[in-house]
């Protein structure tokens, strides 16, 4: 029953937000449902990590919803580069368990200890060390435009999104009606 109500509200929102949805899709592109050849996630990200450690920056498609609204599943790519150090606010590719990788944002750093969280996650966090990080996102590549990670407007939005964490669940609900 709860799920049905959620679907109804989302459908209603999609209708009400149609002008914003069209504007958003025009500016950022549409999520593609085209079939694509996929490699097992961890094996592929392991290979990407290896490339980054060899000094070869690389752009990957992102799979999953954990970095919404800044990185959208299968629509966006990110350009990853290895850096000397990583700071709070950086979106990084990190190995959080043997053979298991995530692309999430650093929300806290204490010495070499990092706490990561997906922008689209409400509660879960991951812990790792700086040496577990393979590289960071330096460009957000959307179908219609490329946004550098040091873009001041983007940085302000990311900080605002972090501050709005208490209501993130509801904001994501509205976002899903627009994307």
């Amino acid at each position, binding site marked *: 029953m709860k799920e049905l109500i959620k679907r109804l509200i989302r459908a209603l929102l999609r209708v009400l937000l149609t002008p914003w949805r069209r504007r958003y899709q025009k500016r950022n592109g549409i999520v593609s449902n085209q079939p694509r050849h996929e490699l097992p996630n961890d094996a592929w990200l392991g290979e990407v990590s290896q*490339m980054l450690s060899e000094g070869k920056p690389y752009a990957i498609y992102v799979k999953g919803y954990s970095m919404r609204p800044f990185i959208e599943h299968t629509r966006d790519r990110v350009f990853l580069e290895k850096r000397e150090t990583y700071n709070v606010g950086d979106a990084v590719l990190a190995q959080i368990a043997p053979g298991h990788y995530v692309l999430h944002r650093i929300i806290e750093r204490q010495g070499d200890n990092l706490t990561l969280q997906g922008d689209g996650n409400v509660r879960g966090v991951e812990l790792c060390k700086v040496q577990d990080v393979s590289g960071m996102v330096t460009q957000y590549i959307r179908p219609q435009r490329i946004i550098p990670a040091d873009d001041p407007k983007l940085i302000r939005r990311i900080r605002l999104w972090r501050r709005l964490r208490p209501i993130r669940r509801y904001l994501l609900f509205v976002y899903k009606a627009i994307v």
Partner: protein
Amino acid sequence: MVNDMMRIKKGFELREVCGEHIIVAYGRENIDFNKVISLNESATFLWKNIFDKDFTAETMASLLCQEYEVDAETAARDAQALLDEWIKVGLVCS
């Protein structure tokens, strides 16, 4: 086109992931390249032998004849088709 000297573009390389041979394009200059190309056995063999060298369709056909039991005409046709595909996808330049 048949005898133009070609070369694999900078930043493109062969990697093996889960038993598949794939071509990736790294580096800022290839940021717009959003494909991952999977190569079969013979294409992988050719790639490994012409990587970092200048080559033509004839070079590729000759390599196929040396490695596989195939007549010259078939090798030439297959080599040209593969090279045309690589040019179309953007893996090679002259």
